[in-house]
């Protein structure tokens, strides 16, 4: 690097510099965020796959009426937790055919946040949508929720820390995307340019193609991702207009009905929820999908009925709030202002709750393109930097510390992360069902696998390591349908021909199979390149042995 390179050169060069560094410094974390986020488009389906105990019940040919389902869930909650601080009931809708109920209890003194979360995870039951009877308790797993949370909360740290770290990475990504576009004078032409097997040129083309092809998606997903937590990242407008009353702002912007009012401590039986559901269904033209009861069996009880936002872009969920003791309608969310609807739509674009199966698949593929963009970008840095050492290496020297570090991190992230995801799913099927804190064990398996891959890569950042980890990932991913065949009754032979409720399971198996094949192809490709390289080296060695003097002279 020449001195003053940033200072003297033009806009394009300085933007290229910014692009390289803002991308490189966060790329391994971004890869985790991108992979987990891409998988999270199917988090409900992943959760369902990870709870095989529920598969049979979900494949019901008919369903009981929504209002009856709600009444049965309420009855179950009355038996188990009449004094809970809150009840939550999820009713069947497109992507979920089961009825799930859970409750929260006021936290005991001295309970940590993690303990409270673990306690909450035990407090639920599932009803069969056909009979209304309780299903067998599913295994203790966080399913797709772990992947979804990992995507912005990270793990082994407070969610607040995780969100700031991911936010900084996302901001770097935004800067990298914009500076990358400025650097690129031939953005349209480059998109149609691919020169395979040309070393650095090919990596650059691959990076350009994956980045430009899905550029609108990358830009959208990065910006909207920042928007999901924008009031935390950028608090100054809130401070200017609301002072310290941040919760007032949240109430006004997110338009949620007043929650968290204290209980009156006067007992009053909860009114029947069926008339409320019917009233809501009449008003909306479709049934509510979630019921939230705060302070059940108290005179101050509130029943909030929430509707899935459906195919609208905005994520603002219409809701109606009823007095829990009398059953009278208290309020319903009105139409949001244009600005608030716009924010809701930007947020909605990120989580893509509105997407029908085809659009969701497209989002998933764009997410994979994002992973490819980050991965090829990270590799490109190593390839470029390595060229500076070409002479040193030819003379028998070693590449610099930075190149070695980046190579190792690349292996650990690009090849190691798929291994970690696959191990997470393997753990779900293989860990004993009665293991203590089983869902945490599954998460620990994910990080143990990733950690092992990352450390191995640091010890030996070689082509052989690439091949080993890619092959391992391929076998584990492609092996999932086979594992599923031996450990459950809902394998591909059943799910492909079963009812629509089982199709997500078939989809899961087929996608992991396809990802496994993709990783296998990558491993084969790396191996083939290695052979070529070795061939070139041995012929070079032969040439060198013919004329050893020339090397010494050099």
């Amino acid at each position, binding site marked *: 690097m020449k001195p003053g390179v940033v*200072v003297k050169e033009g806009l394009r060069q300085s933007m290229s510099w910014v692009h390289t560094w803002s991308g490189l410094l966060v790329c391994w974390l971004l890869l985790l965020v991108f992979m987990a986020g891409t998988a999270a488009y199917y988090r409900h389906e992943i959760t369902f796959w990870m709870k095989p105990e529920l598969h049979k019940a979900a494949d019901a040919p008919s369903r009981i009426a929504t209002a009856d389902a709600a009444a049965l869930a309420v009855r179950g909650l009355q038996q188990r937790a009449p004094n809970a601080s809150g009840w939550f009931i999820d009713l069947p809708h497109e992507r979920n055919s089961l009825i799930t109920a859970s409750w929260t209890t006021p936290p005991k003194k001295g309970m940590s946040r993690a303990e409270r979360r673990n306690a909450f995870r035990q407090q639920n039951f599932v009803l069969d949508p056909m009979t209304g009877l309780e299903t067998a308790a599913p295994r203790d797993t966080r399913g797709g929720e772990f992947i979804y949370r990992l995507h912005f909360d990270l793990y082994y740290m407070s969610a607040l820390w995780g969100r700031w770290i991911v936010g900084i990475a996302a901001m770097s990504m935004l800067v990298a995307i914009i500076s990358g576009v400025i650097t690129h004078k031939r953005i349209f032409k480059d998109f149609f340019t691919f020169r395979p097997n040309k070393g650095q040129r090919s990596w650059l083309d691959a990076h350009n193609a994956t980045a430009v092809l899905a550029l609108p998606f990358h830009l959208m997903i990065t910006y909207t991702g920042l928007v999901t937590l924008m009031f935390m990242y950028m608090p100054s407008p809130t401070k200017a207009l609301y002072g310290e009353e941040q919760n007032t702002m949240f109430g006004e912007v997110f338009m949620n009905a007043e929650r968290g009012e204290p209980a009156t401590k006067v007992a009053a039986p909860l009114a029947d929820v069926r008339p409320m559901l019917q009233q809501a269904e009449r008003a909306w033209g479709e049934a509510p999908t979630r019921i939230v009861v705060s302070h059940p069996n108290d005179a101050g009880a509130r029943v909030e009925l929430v509707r899935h936002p459906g195919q609208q872009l905005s994520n603002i969920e219409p809701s109606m709030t009823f007095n829990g003791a009398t059953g009278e309608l208290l309020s319903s969310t009105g139409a949001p202002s244009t600005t608030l609807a716009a924010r809701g739509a930007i947020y909605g674009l990120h989580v893509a709750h509105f997407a029908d199966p085809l659009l969701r698949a497209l989002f998933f593929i764009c997410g994979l393109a994002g992973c490819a963009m980050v991965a090829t970008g990270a590799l490109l840095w190593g390839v470029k930097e390595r060229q500076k050492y070409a002479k040193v290496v030819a003379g028998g020297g070693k590449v610099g510390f930075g190149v070695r570090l980046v190579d190792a991190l690349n292996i650990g992230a690009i090849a190691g992360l798929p291994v970690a995801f696959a191990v997470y799913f393997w753990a779900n099927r293989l860990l004993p069902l009665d293991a203590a804190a089983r869902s945490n064990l599954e998460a620990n398996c994910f990080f143990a696998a990733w950690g092992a891959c990352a450390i191995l890569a640091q010890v030996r950042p070689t082509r052989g390591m690439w091949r080993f980890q890619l092959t391992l990932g391929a076998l584990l991913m492609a092996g999932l349908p086979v594992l599923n065949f031996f450990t459950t009754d809902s394998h591909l032979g059943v799910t492909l021909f079963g009812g629509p409720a089982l199709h997500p399971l078939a989809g899961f198996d087929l996608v992991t199979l396809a990802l496994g094949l993709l990783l296998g192809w990558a491993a084969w490709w790396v191996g083939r390149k290695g052979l070529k390289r070795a061939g070139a080296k041995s012929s070079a060695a032969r040439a060198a042995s013919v004329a050893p003097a020339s090397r010494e002279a050099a």
Partner: protein
Amino acid sequence: MTPTPWRYRGAVASRAVAAIGGGYVLTSIAIALIAIALPLPRADAVTIATLLSFVVYTCAILWVFATTSATRAWVGIVVCSAALGAVQWLVGGAA
């Protein structure tokens, strides 16, 4: 590989601080001013201003790296922040 001189490294570090830290401060002041200035209900104003924040921040960061010297970058960030801050202070005082 010629080693990178310390002066160059210092200039890059200085720009990085100006971009990340200075840019954040400038953005915070600018969007607070936008929120105050918008003639909309406050929920709308706060939303628009916060939505714009990442655009402002990105532009600030890129400008810091694009301008000719680290000194210039610092002067630009500090002067803009001070000017916007003064306007906000005056508006706040008048209201």
